[in-house]
């Protein structure tokens, strides 16, 4: 075979591989969309191309019979609070760790790295008992506090790594002009650290939205559920019978999230590699 033919064969193989992967990606997604437009609620009688196209399930989600909107609201409350809180706490901690020398700094950094690895799971009994003792079990506030504390080790590293790359000369120049600690933080470091703080904000917005484990431990009453727990319980009891409604509910979650992700993925990657390789 001459080189040109080899090249054509190679390119065809690559396109074929990419096509197969794309089919594998789209199949479940399109199947779900198809399900959500089926008329019946049972999975037995549903097919990927609905015989009777209907918007019933979407209508049902917004009707008073379902808690869907409530769960959506709860999820947004948790996500927004965690986003705002985590950006504030993390930037303060990261600034101190990046710019100051203090007793215990190195040990604290070691502990942060170690804690990043441990899953919430290991602590869940303790969290359950503790939240119960202080009366925060089954509240969104309790959930928010756990998320806020839990995200510190990972995100503090991420932001610290980024702030380390901001030249110290800028701080010093501001110091000479008479700026205090907070002033330097607010007017110099914070504006320059915006890209990484955006990544932290995005992570902390998405994480509570997708997390299933923690809310399923902390929240027990239906009106406090977040989307993940709500949708899971939705189909857990009568799997086959509620699936089409679940499909409709998931699509309404997935579309906005996917749009944001696809739009921001470049920043996500650069943020992660910055944190991963530079620390």
């Amino acid at each position, binding site marked *: 075979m001459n080189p040109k033919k080899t090249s054509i064969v190679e390119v065809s193989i690559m396109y074929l591989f990419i096509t197969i*992967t794309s089919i594998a990606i789209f199949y479940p997604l399109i199947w779900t969309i198809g399900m959500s437009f089926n008329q019946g609620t049972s999975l037995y009688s549903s097919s990927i191309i609905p015989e009777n196209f209907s918007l019933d399930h979407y209508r049902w989600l917004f009707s008073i019979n379902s808690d869907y909107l409530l769960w959506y609201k709860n999820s947004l409350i948790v996500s927004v609070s965690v986003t705002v809180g985590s950006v504030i706490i*993390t930037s*303060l901690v990261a600034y101190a760790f990046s710019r100051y*020398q203090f007793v215990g700094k190195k040990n604290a950094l070691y502990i942060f790295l170690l804690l990043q690895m441990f899953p919430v*799971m290991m*602590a869940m009994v303790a969290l359950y008992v503790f939240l119960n003792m202080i009366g925060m079990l089954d509240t969104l506030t309790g959930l928010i506090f756990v998320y806020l504390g839990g995200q510190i080790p990972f995100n503090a590293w991420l932001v610290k790594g980024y702030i380390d790359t901001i030249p110290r000369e800028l701080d010093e120049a501001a110091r000479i002009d008479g700026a205090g600690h907070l002033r330097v933080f607010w007017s110099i470091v914070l504006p320059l650290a915006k890209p990484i703080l955006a990544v932290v904000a995005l992570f902390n917005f998405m994480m509570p939205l997708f997390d299933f*484990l923690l809310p399923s431990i902390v929240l027990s009453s239906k009106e406090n559920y977040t989307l993940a727990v709500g949708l899971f319980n939705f189909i857990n009891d009568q799997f086959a019978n509620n699936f089409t409604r679940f499909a409709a509910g998931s699509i309404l979650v997935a579309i906005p999230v996917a749009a944001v992700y696809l739009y921001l993925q470049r920043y996500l990657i650069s943020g992660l590699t910055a944190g991963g390789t530079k620390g």
Partner: protein
Amino acid sequence: MDNTLTNKRADRHNPNIATVLSIVFAGLGQLYNRRFLKGIIFILLEVVILITLIDSLNYGLWGLRTLGTIPGEDHSIRLLVFGVLSLIGSVMLITLYVFNVIDARNQARQIKAGCLPKGFKASIISFYDHSFPYLMTFPGLLLMIFVVIFPLLFSVLLAFTNYSLYTSPPRSLVDWIGIGNFKELVTVPIWQDTFVSVLSWTVVWTIVATTLQIALGMTLALMVNDPRIKFKKLIRTILILPWAVPAFVTILIFSAMFNDDFGAINRDIIIPLFGGDGIPWLSDPLYARTAVILIQTWLGFPFIFALFTGVLQSISKDWYEAADVDGGSRFQKFRFITLPHVLFATAPLLIMQYAQNFNNFNIIYLFNEGGPPVRGQNAGGTDILISWVYKLTFDTNNYAMAAAISLIMGMIISCFAFYQFRQTKSFKEEGEL
């Protein structure tokens, strides 16, 4: 104050006296150093702590030691929580005390060396300067102590008790049993069988699923990066889609698709193509395991793909041109240029992927709740350690055993963490401090 007097006093000033005084009672050393305000604040603090906190600290530590003595009245688990908190509190107080002693000693030395005491305003400013990083980190660290460090300590301690449904307070008391749980785990047949099979599946799962997603992600990244491929932007967007859809949604969808009876995989693909009754995806352990690995690959490869695409684009063309001049083959270019570049830039993140899959509770639990059940075991066929712990805790309420297994998981995870320590660049920079 005239100069000779100051000098005389400075000469006679003895750091050892300051140290001893501040050990005897916080603040006395500072008084001796003539830092009256600071000294009085320290003395007041210690008095307040002695009056209010010492009793509860004592009670907490007593609870930690005994876990209660009267069944029905002492609540062992509350005592344990309280005990751990007292322990953390004590460590903080001891740190403060040590700080007080060091402070007194340093100041006495400075005075002896002839350093004039700073004015009131100057010392406030210097205090603010020194404590600023502590003030900044304090809220975050406090939160972290309560929701991360305290629960972890609690779990570690729980592993050495016999807390389960049968010893559950307030009815009865929980006791310390040393390494009893760990012994049971390796000697009692049902625990032993389950532990060995769950642990080995966890290892297989972690390695196979993660390696598959890395391999697929890397292959696709290399292909799409090939200059002969067109529509790059469109292809990239499609390939990233699985990452963009919330994972819990996808897993639940797959769980329905793989359903033995009415799932789309059996009904629309397997039966029409191969005939038969379809594959028992959810009820046969081997097929269930295959299914979760396939699903994880589907879920995980886009992240790797996006990561590698980013790195591939940043490799300078000069390298490849140099290789062309030297007559390097394509495989050689991949082996000696592309691979080292990509791996160097992403190694810590790839390790994190393995650690994440080791703890990937969501996919195991949401797909099939760890099932199908296996005869002679108290964990299901696809249960990995973390989902087994969840079941032990919330289904059978065997808290102590769950904690013991968590502790073993923690040790395995620490190995990942150790590797990460050595890899992380900024830590090496930190090391030169």
